[in-house]
């Protein structure tokens, strides 16, 4: 076989593409990616980085200038904090390839540090000019200590030890109000236990003091923009390239005389410093620090952001943080949660359009089939079991109204909904076993069942639903698109 044939040989999706390196994978993908995201990815790849940054800055400032709604600004601020955290995690996970499951600890150290240095807890009131550098340096030191374990522990072991560090931190946060130090008479109250430290000073830069939600929004925006520029330059630097080499193959990097252990530490230190910095802004804005703010759920949320956007890609991480945090907020009211759900289904259908002549017709057929299937099932159920269509949906508006004529709404939704949920999970799992036409035929009932479960069970319990969705998102992403939306496809080079 000629070389050219080898290159264009169709490799089945489930087989590793042996010998395809990062560069080839990127080029190949840019050429082949005809889906919805293809043009966006091409655009992002071609436009100079400072244009994107400028665009983000203008967009962020415009949003902050126009919007006056407190809730909206608060969501914007939270999103920016998550952007910061995701950027920091990206340094450790996306660039250096170290699986750090204790990343939230750095956020916590930053927040508690700010609470110690700028609140009435120890009666120290430093301005942010003084306290933030101290805290960032302190957090970087904590990162250095935790990162030291990465010298001996590889891969999974590092993940476990950092997870334990998180566990230790949470215990410390909850029980740190009564610590006996040898040779000190009274027990020391470091964290005030589960009650948290409250109030904390606002972010005081001497010439300017952040007071309102809007101030904090602009503060976080400024920090995020500066950080983005710095990280971009860092990524292009010698260190950035060394990190990528370390991620792809630590042994090869070592052979090429890169100081592997120092690079690992450096990644940890950078990630920790960014985490600590966001912790200070976080603590100042919410005016308090509670141990419950730093838990495994937050960690998973940040991981989902980094992975959805594409670990290692700066625009990807930012987009991931925005998408996940905004949809997370929207899930809390039934009407908005519905938009997310049906919007998500439509986007997924469009993204999965087969690249063949009849592809779009298949998708249109599936959509029409789903609607028809719904009405048919509802009619049949209405005849045999009137209670099954007699309930009311939570929420209001025309969409709710329309939906209540389409999905099954039992009068007592919860019991039946639980069985439907199990059935739905079973069906989705079975989709991975079924191929060909049966798979497409199964899609319409599946969407209908998912809609019924969504309307009857999941919308009513937003707190649990968001976590279920996060878990499912991680598994699905790893299966379908491990490189995320903007990341570079990586393959194991054998």
């Amino acid at each position, binding site marked *: 076989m000629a070389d050219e044939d080898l290159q264009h040989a169709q490799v089945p999706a489930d087989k590793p593409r042996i010998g395809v390196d990062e560069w080839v994978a990127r080029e190949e993908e840019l050429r082949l990616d005809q889906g919805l995201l293809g043009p966006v990815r091409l655009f992002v790849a071609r436009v100079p980085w400072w244009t994107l940054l400028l665009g983000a800055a203008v967009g962020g400032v415009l949003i902050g200038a126009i919007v006056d709604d407190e809730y909206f600004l608060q969501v914007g601020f939270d999103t920016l904090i998550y952007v910061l955290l995701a950027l920091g995690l990206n340094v450790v996970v996306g660039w250096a390839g170290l699986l750090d499951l204790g990343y939230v600890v750095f956020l916590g150290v930053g927040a508690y540090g700010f609470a110690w240095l700028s609140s009435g807890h120890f009666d120290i009131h430093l301005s942010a000019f003084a306290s933030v550098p101290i805290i960032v340096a302190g957090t970087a030191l904590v990162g250095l200590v935790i990162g030291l374990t990465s010298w001996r522990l590889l891969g999974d072991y590092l993940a476990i030890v950092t997870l*334990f560090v998180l566990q230790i931190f949470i215990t410390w946060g909850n029980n740190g109000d009564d610590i006996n130090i040898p040779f000190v008479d009274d027990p020391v109250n470091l964290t005030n236990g589960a009650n948290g430290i409250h109030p904390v000073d606002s972010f005081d830069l001497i010439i300017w003091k952040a007071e309102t939600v809007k101030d904090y929004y602009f503060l976080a925006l400024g920090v995020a923009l500066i950080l983005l520029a710095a990280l971009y330059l860092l990524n292009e630097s010698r260190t950035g390239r060394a990190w990528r080499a370390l991620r792809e193959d630590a042994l090869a990097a070592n052979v090429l005389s890169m100081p592997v252990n120092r690079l690992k530490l450096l990644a940890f230190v950078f990630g920790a410093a960014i985490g600590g910095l966001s912790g200070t802004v976080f603590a100042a804005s919410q005016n308090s620090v509670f141990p419950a703010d730093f838990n495994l759920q937050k960690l998973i949320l940040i991981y989902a952001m980094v992975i959805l956007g594409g670990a290692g890609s700066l625009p990807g991480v930012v987009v991931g943080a925005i998408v996940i945090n905004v949809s997370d907020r929207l899930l809390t009211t039934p009407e908005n949660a519905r938009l997310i759900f049906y919007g998500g289904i439509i986007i997924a259908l469009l993204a999965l359009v087969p690249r063949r002549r009849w592809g779009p017709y298949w998708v249109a057929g599936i959509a029409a089939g789903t609607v028809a299937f719904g009405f048919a099932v509802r009619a049949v159920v209405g005849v045999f079991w009137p209670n099954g269509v007699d309930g009311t949906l939570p929420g209001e508006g025309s969409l709710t109204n329309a939906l209540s004529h389409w999905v099954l709404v039992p009068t007592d939704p919860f019991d039946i909904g639980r069985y439907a949920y199990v059935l739905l999970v079973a069906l989705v799992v079975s989709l*991975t076993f079924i191929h060909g036409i049966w798979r497409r035929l199964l899609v319409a009932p599946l969407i209908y069942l998912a809609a019924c479960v969504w309307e009857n069970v999941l919308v009513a319990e937003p707190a649990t639903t968001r976590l279920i969705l996060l878990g499912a998102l991680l598994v699905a992403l790893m299966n379908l698109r491990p490189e995320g939306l903007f990341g570079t496809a990586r393959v194991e080079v054998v």
Partner: protein
Amino acid sequence: MDWATFVQLCVNGLTLGSVYALLALGYSMVYGVLKLLNFAHGDVFMIGAFVGYGILTSFGGSLNLSISVWLVIVLMMGGAMIGCGFLGVLIERVAYRPLRAAPRIAPLISALGVSFFLANSAQLLFGAASKSYDTFGLVPPEDGIHWRNLNIWWIQVLVIGSAFLFMAFLTWLVQRTKIGKAMRAVSFDREAAAMMGIDPDRVIVYTFFIGSALAGAAGVLIGLVLFQAFPYMGFNYGLQAFTAAVVGGIGYIPGAMFGGLLIGFVQSFSQYYFTTWFQLVSLSLLVAVMLIRPSGLFGKATLEKV
């Protein structure tokens, strides 16, 4: 501390430790064949506790049981083991098998996702409140071995006995049967095993079934001893059991058993001495072991390049 308290703490530690050992075996076996940290294992264990609870309630619950006590316990264990075994196989099929060729970080994140999905699905389906096994209704607390101040409840005897029975069975399976030989071969070198005519995927499926079935049994046992099942129990116990597996040397089966018992003892005694900080004792033990001997107390030191 008097003598009776000491022995009592030992018995408690042995009870807890044998459950940890069962759970640790699953982590260790899966790591052996797949080199994967199965974060979802703790949640499979949690599902086992709920399956046991479901079977118990379907026979009328602890307080007005329609069949004999020991029969219902056997049914609970059997049901949980079979259910969890298949659940484990399914998880492997959906979340791990497609990622065999992916970078090593991918299956780990997928495992985190499965763990999150299972724990929160359980919360959705069964509610956040813990379900009580009411074990005192099954076997009254005064039934058991009494000697001076020492009280050993029959359920504790059951837990320790069945855990050791399972471990003996597993040792036999791994050391003496053909599939056990295949498991050892795959965990030693998957590619070489495949060249010798062993189907690694088949071995992995068996491993997941056995490991998850043991987790299911452990779930029922912990439900009986500690009286409850709740959706987030998988994380806490899973973490402890994982500690056990690592301390004993992950991938090494007798190591997991020993590590489980050790962690059980450590917890039992540290709970007595440090009430609030007891969790940290076993965690610090783990960090110390990992830093001094990353391959665990009994693990074979492998030559890791960078």
